């Protein structure tokens, strides 16, 4: 996989003394959707802000398409579009004016045809002459996206793109992001919604307390860390587990009717057949069974909990 952003040993301490990033190593692959998943205060915005040039890096190196973000900032930044977390936008300008400003700022000659296509794609064309102050929150966010795309970037950062927007708009946003990826743009989005990472990402990085604990293909991550549970509904309720089964990862429900066995999908020997043999040995019959796999959410929660 060709890497388009390379982050090596990146650390950042704010002037307050807070260590916001702690030795980050990360490669973003060309053309992927990468989700940076982490709770509030994990360091997601800090990481993005350093790559984009808004926060000064501490130690370490970052390159964008082999251009060092400090030494060769022009080449690096020209490739990047950023949609910030906050709705920071000059509100008295019209949509079109602010688009042209963004494009010019990134060193591109005006291109009305391209600007029109971006605005149409984001359903903003009808609003092109409207002052931004008159637009709804969802539209403002789309204007921010349009601004970020105004200079035809190869990489797009979306910092919590769906925070505070409703479900329907969220779907629309996701579709737009996929269309962008299909057009060859590499996308890095941050989110603290697991659903979003699960839905959108090709790969997921989990960040917590300024450290990246996992970077994986989404599917691999889910398989690798996913625990499966086997729930057995018993013929006759049990008062307690027989002592002989004490060593097993078994849990008995409150009413004694359901026995839950947790196992690792990764392991070659899940221990299921052994368990079933043991159960019949003790005369414990069951009338139903079903298995379930934990979602990314469970994985995430357990990861974050393990850390702290």
């Amino acid at each position, binding site marked *: 996989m060709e890497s388009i952003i390379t982050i090596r040993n990146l650390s950042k301490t704010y002037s307050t003394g807070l260590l916001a990033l702690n030795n980050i190593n990360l490669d973003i692959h060309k053309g992927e959707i990468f989700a940076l998943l982490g709770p509030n205060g994990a360091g997601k915005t800090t990481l993005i802000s350093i790559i984009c*040039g808004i*926060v000064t890096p501490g130690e370490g190196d970052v390159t964008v398409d082999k251009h060092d973000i400090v030494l060769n900032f*022009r080449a690096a930044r020209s490739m990047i579009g950023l949609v910030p977390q906050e709705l920071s*936008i000059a509100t*008295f300008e019209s949509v079109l004016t602010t688009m042209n400003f963004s494009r010019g700022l990134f060193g591109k000659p005006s291109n009305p045809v391209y600007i029109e296509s971006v605005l149409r794609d984001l359903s903003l064309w009808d609003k092109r002459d409207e002052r931004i102050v008159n637009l709804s929150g969802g539209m403002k966010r789309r204007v921010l996206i349009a*601004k970020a795309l105004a200079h035809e970037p190869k990489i797009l950062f979306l910092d919590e793109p769906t925070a505070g927007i409703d479900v329907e708009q969220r779907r629309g946003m996701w579709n737009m992001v996929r269309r962008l990826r299909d057009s060859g743009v590499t996308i890095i989005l941050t989110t603290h919604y697991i659903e979003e990472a699960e839905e959108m990402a090709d790969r997921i990085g989990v960040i917590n307390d300024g450290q990246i604990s996992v970077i994986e293909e989404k599917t691999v991550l889910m398989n690798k860390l996913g625990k499966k549970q086997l729930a057995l509904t018993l013929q006759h309720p049990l008062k307690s587990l027989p002592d002989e089964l004490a060593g097993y990862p078994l849990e008995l429900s409150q009413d004694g009717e359901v026995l839950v066995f947790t196992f690792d999908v990764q392991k070659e020997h899940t221990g299921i057949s052994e368990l079933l043999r043991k159960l019949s040995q003790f005369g414990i019959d069951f009338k139903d069974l079903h298995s379930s796999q934990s979602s990314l959410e469970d994985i995430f929660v357990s990861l974050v909990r393990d850390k702290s």
Partner: protein
Amino acid sequence: MNIYAIRAIYVFEMSRTWRTLMESIASPILTTSLYFIVFGAAIGSRMGDIDGISYGSFIIPGLLMLSLLGESISNASFGIYFPKFSGTIYEVLSAPVSPVEVVIGYVGAAASKSLIIGGLILITARFFVDYQIMHPVMMVSFLLLTAISFSLFGFIIGLWADDFQKLQIIPMMVITPLTFLGGAFYSISMLPPFWQKVTLFNPVVYLISGFRWSFYGVADVNVGISLAMIMVFMLLCLTGIWWIFKTGYRLKN
């Protein structure tokens, strides 16, 4: 050089000027007109000539400088303070622009705006008093240099300020007294000898004196020194801005 970026910033800033035309342009012109009516036409007619120049004409260069300084500082400081305040500065910081280009865009727009206002004041003055311009090239140079260096100064204030109060405190507490005591309304030679010496520590004295020389050929201090002083001030401001961008002071965390 990212010319497109400079142009984008410049155009954006100027469009703010046109949008707020009344506050931006009308109010300084109105204020100066009032000065002319009160000091030029009303009180001036009771005052004797200074250095052979009628009082109304004598105060024109000083008044012009007064507006030019104030406007340059407030335009430039507000121009950069506001994006910082509203958060839109992220876009400039993330763009492939160098500090030099950012400064040219913002300071260029602020200086242009105050030059426009200066020009309009000069035209307005025609309606109240008579004046001549003996050294037009020098006059324009003084205008340009002053507009640019005080816009640079305003830019520094805008970068430094982290609330609206700080934005206004330097223009109010420092610049206004210095300009009023800088010989806009009197010739330094009218002061007692001791205060004549003290007043030479006021940089605005050199500005107004040199500027008045370009109008009427009379000056309180040598014109060369006036020019040198303004150049030094400009250099100081440029150094300050260079340092701010180098360290990221108040711009980046």
